[in-house]
């Protein structure tokens, strides 16, 4: 359905470049290094969580001179990542195109088989973190301090209880469905554009609850405007010791959002090794570690085959849902 002449051209173009690159003798370099600026595709819009992380990584690479060329972020937020995936598919064989992904990396191809994207062909580089989710309400709701009181209040309001989130079928929607099912609620899910907007709707009392990432609610949380009731994680988050996990509350439910760097499909082995090494260095840098702590990010560094099997496992879990 989504095949076009345009994609074909790109493929021809990419093929031409790679043939020519292969023809150029590399002098004096044992290991592969990028020879032109690297396109760093962001699977989300400007200003969101993923975009901020990419710009932080870009700046770490530039300021610590980790690479001989600049990394230039290009935002492709269209179609829940569909645009970015199709773009990457068109860059088949490119050694100078990488992408920063979210969970939509494996959920979007499942939902839209027409794209013809197989994530198994992409090159795993490095999982930089896993973002977490918490359940939030406004601090003025003095009557809600734990999940039982939340369930009671939400039930009383029926479908007038508004849960704000980031688009239908998004991670937020999945979590809302879980809450509705687990606590027998009938909350109304209203989609907004981006997590920051969602956080603001809660703070402005235009929504009754949200399931934001910590990074999105942090400002309001620190100002005492919103509070976290429970976490969708395995263990309590150090930043929110007062929020028990759903596991503690008797619901076997955890959910994370991957923050991963992916290479174009068919990238050469040498290039893949280079990017893996580079992002391992970024991962271990003080700035990235500081960012992880501040935004309450979880998840260890994952590379190579381990990352690929992680994707496949997550994809199968999603598929079975």
């Amino acid at each position, binding site marked *: 359905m989504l095949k076009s002449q345009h994609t074909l051209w790109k493929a021809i173009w990419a093929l031409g470049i790679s043939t*020519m690159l292969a023809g150029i003798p590399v002098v004096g370099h044992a290991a592969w290094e990028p020879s*032109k*600026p690297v*396109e760093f595709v962001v699977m989300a819009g400007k200003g969101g969580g993923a975009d901020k992380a990419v710009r932080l990584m870009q700046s770490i690479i530039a300021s610590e001179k980790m690479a001989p060329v600049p990394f*230039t972020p290009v935002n492709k937020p269209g179609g829940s990542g569909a645009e970015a995936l199709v773009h990457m598919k068109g860059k088949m064989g490119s050694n100078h195109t990488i992408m920063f992904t979210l969970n939509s990396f494996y959920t979007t191809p499942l939902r839209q088989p027409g794209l013809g994207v197989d994530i198994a062909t992409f090159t795993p580089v490095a999982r930089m973190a896993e973002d977490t989710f918490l359940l939030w309400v406004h601090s003025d709701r003095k009557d809600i301090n734990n999940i039982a009181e939340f369930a009671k209040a939400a039930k009383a309001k029926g*479908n007038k209880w508004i849960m704000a989130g980031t688009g239908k079928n998004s991670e937020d929607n999945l979590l809302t469905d879980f809450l509705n099912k687990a606590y027998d609620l009938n909350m109304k899910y209203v989609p907004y554009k981006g997590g920051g907007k969602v956080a603001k709707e809660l703070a402005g009392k235009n929504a009754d609850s949200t399931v934001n990432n910590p990074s999105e609610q942090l400002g309001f949380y620190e100002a005492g405007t919103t509070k976290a009731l429970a976490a969708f994680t395995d263990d309590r988050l150090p930043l929110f010791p007062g929020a028990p996990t759903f596991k503690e509350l008797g619901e076997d439910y955890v959910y994370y959002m991957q923050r991963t760097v992916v290479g174009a499909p068919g990238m050469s082995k040498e290039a893949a090794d280079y990017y893996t090494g580079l992002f391992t260095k970024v991962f271990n840098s003080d700035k990235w570690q500081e960012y992880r702590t501040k935004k309450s990010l979880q998840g260890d560094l994952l590379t190579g085959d381990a990352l690929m099997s992680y994707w496949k496992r997550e994809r199968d879990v999603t598929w079975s849902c």
Partner: protein
Amino acid sequence: MALLMGVFSIYLMVKSAELPIGWIDEEGPGGGTWPFWLATIMLISCGGIIYNWFRKKGPIATSNKTYIEAHVLGDVAAVAVALIITVALFSFIGVYGALPLFLIFYIRFMGKHSWKLTAALTVGVPVVTFYFFEITLKIILPKGVTEPLFLPLYKMFL
């Protein structure tokens, strides 16, 4: 024109209808509702435009100005075609291959300026473009087959 646009409106309506165009319970208006009704407005407007034209009431229908004069048409068409060819060439011989050709065509053959001036601009414009966009702003333009020529430049500047 209105007829063509009317057909385009119908295409847009059909395309919008690929998504639900009615009310979905608990979700509000479907994804296709907004563009569907707007495309319908387009179609109605086209109908109105054609009706006005038949009644000879619109400002166009009543004016006796020629749509475009023949000798002028040549110039406009030449520029439009040159633009299309230039963009087509972007993907093959790159911006820095196609732009000079366009500049030579326009300055020398449309503008009838001297070869000296043509040469200066043909070299100057791409060089300034490279400095401003690629080096200062780090916006990488398509290179096509000329890509390998730029690798040493990237090494030097970026």
